[in-house]
């Protein structure tokens, strides 16, 4: 993409507020992006701590550290914190930082709404953490032992902590929908003159699709948990068979949200890859239009295959056949994206800096997670694998490489732009290898545990599963601790280091690289002209 000369530094560091007001009242997309990223990092460590307790407990058979209800509460909290507190806000942080700079806009379309979207999050996180803490107090009721799916009738019987969780989900949903609206309006209305839709950077496209998905499915989750709240406190029987309702209805409501949520987590990272792989292959992205088409196909088909998460509930043969075929069909556009990435790398002048290492890792490991997903999509096979550790291994292979490693790739790719300093490449690579090796040692053995019959969400297990669990737990400790290195690298880069150039990477393309590193507080006050 080429542009005419720009005078983007006119407002360099003018009017930048200071102190706590800068952050609390911020309407600047870069500051709000930073807030999102810091929030996500904090929640990642919180969610990671619960995962460490889970793996410590599973290190040996028997019950060692926590009681069974608390174990299941940790499982619930780990999932909710990681999905709603870490991955989604981190992706929103990247969106806030990068979208206006990529499309030549001075800020998000509605900066004050942007501020509100972020500041709802700490309130929601407080409610989420309270839902975990409340049962420890006298009269606090029972632990949330439902898992993140919150299936009734168990969720209608849990104590008041479930109400905290329902309100937390409402707040998180409001924040997500407001942020999505802002992103859609920004992308549709604020692009620089000459930037047609099919000239938009791929990261922006992925966020446009993600934002629409969020608006379509988050209100359904909100509807579901509201019905749950009514069943709990207002005498309704949406999910109560004794009153004429059916608990399976909640499963449909939940998974109508839950399955597209997977793509909500994945797509922004696919967007990051679409910039990282061309930059470090020194080639343009292969098949831009087909990537856009594949993404739209994934989003559309992904909306109508939710019930593959509930084959074992007893649906008709016609229904499970439809959901099975639909699910397997998704692998076609997803495969197309992966082939596009491989074709971009093909005969490119590739170098393997940390973002590219993560990108290559994603292509390999996410494909592996996708293949075990095809196994799970097959109805008779899923009857065997359902609710086993195989499923845990599968979705971690999808979400860690597919979503989280993509975010790591994005952070390392854009960190020089944000901070004005190059990160320590040696430490970056060390982080990559400890992270990836730790991840694989943790989750690869879980495939075998699941195939051998170890159920998930159970605190104890048969002694025959001990060896693989020991390996998995050791891997988890390495994996968990490796994130401290990420924290160190980020802090070190913020504090100093080699000065980053405007175009921090030789092969990087796009409007954001026309700006200084770090960019001025206000950028693109004069719109660039796209040729």
């Amino acid at each position, binding site marked *: 993409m080429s542009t005419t000369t720009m005078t983007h530094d006119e407002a360099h560091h003018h009017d930048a507020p200071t102190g706590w007001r800068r952050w609390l009242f911020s309407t600047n997309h870069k500051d709000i992006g930073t807030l999102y990223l810091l929030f996500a990092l904090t929640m990642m460590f919180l969610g990671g701590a619960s995962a460490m307790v889970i793996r410590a407990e599973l290190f040996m058979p028997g019950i060692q550290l926590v009681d069974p209800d608390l174990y299941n509460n940790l499982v619930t909290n780990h999932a909710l914190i990681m999905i709603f507190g870490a991955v989604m806000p981190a992706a929103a942080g990247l969106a806030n930082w990068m979208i206006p700079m990529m499309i030549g806009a001075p800020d998000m379309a509605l900066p004050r709404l942007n501020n509100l979207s972020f500041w709802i999050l700490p309130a929601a996180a407080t409610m989420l953490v309270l839902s975990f803490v409340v049962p420890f107090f006298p009269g606090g009721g029972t632990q949330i032992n439902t898992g993140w799916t919150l299936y009734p009738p168990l969720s209608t019987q849990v104590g008041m902590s479930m109400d905290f969780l329902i309100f937390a989900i409402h707040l998180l949903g409001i924040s997500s929908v407001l942020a999505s609206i802002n992103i859609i309006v920004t992308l549709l209305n604020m692009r620089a003159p000459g930037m047609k839709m099919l000239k938009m950077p791929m990261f922006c496209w992925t966020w446009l699709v993600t934002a629409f998905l969020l608006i379509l499915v988050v*209100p359904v989750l909100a509807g579901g948990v509201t019905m749950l709240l009514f069943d709990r406190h207002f005498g309704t029987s949406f999910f109560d068979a004794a009153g004429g309702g059916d608990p399976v209805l909640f499963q449909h409501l939940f998974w109508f949200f839950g399955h597209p949520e997977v793509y909500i987590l994945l797509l922004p990272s696919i967007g990051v890859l679409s910039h990282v792989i061309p930059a470090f292959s020194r080639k343009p992205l292969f098949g831009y239009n087909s990537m856009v088409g594949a993404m739209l196909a994934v989003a559309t088909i992904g909306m109508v295959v939710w019930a593959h998460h509930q084959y074992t509930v007893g649906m008709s043969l016609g229904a499970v056949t439809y959901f099975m075929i639909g699910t397997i069909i998704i692998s076609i556009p997803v495969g197309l994206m992966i082939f596009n990435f491989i074709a971009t790398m093909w005969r490119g002048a590739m170098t393997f800096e940390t973002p590219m290492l993560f990108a290559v890792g994603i292509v390999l490991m996410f494909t592996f997670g996708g293949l075990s997903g095809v196994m799970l999509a097959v109805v008779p096979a899923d009857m065997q694998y359902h609710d086993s550790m195989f499923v845990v291994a599968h979705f971690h292979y999808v979400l860690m490489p597919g979503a989280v490693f993509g975010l790591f790739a994005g952070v390392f790719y854009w960190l020089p732009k944000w901070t004005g300093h190059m990160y320590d490449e040696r430490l970056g690579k060390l982080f990559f290898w400890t992270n990836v090796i730790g991840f694989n040692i943790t989750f690869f053995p879980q495939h075998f545990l699941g195939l051998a019959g170890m159920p998930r969400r159970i605190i104890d297990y048969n002694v025959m599963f001990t060896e693989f669990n020991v390996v998995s737990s050791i891997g988890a400790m390495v994996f968990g601790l490796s994130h401290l290195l990420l924290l160190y690298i980020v802090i070190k880069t913020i504090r100093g280091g080699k000065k980053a150039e405007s175009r921090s990477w030789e092969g990087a393309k796009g409007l954001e690289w026309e700006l200084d590193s770090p960019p001025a507080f206000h950028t693109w006050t004069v719109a660039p002209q796209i040729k």
Partner: protein
Amino acid sequence: MAIPEHQTPELRRKNIRMVWLLAGFALFIFLTSFPFWTGLFRIVGDQAAG
């Protein structure tokens, strides 16, 4: 900060119009999720029961 040249009042109105449209759409999905899902579920249930 000076108002950017392409941040015109007309664009601002256009942005706000689109926000209300999208927010209304989200609210529509939220409110219709109750009757839609319960209705769909009942139809599927009736069919399964023959």
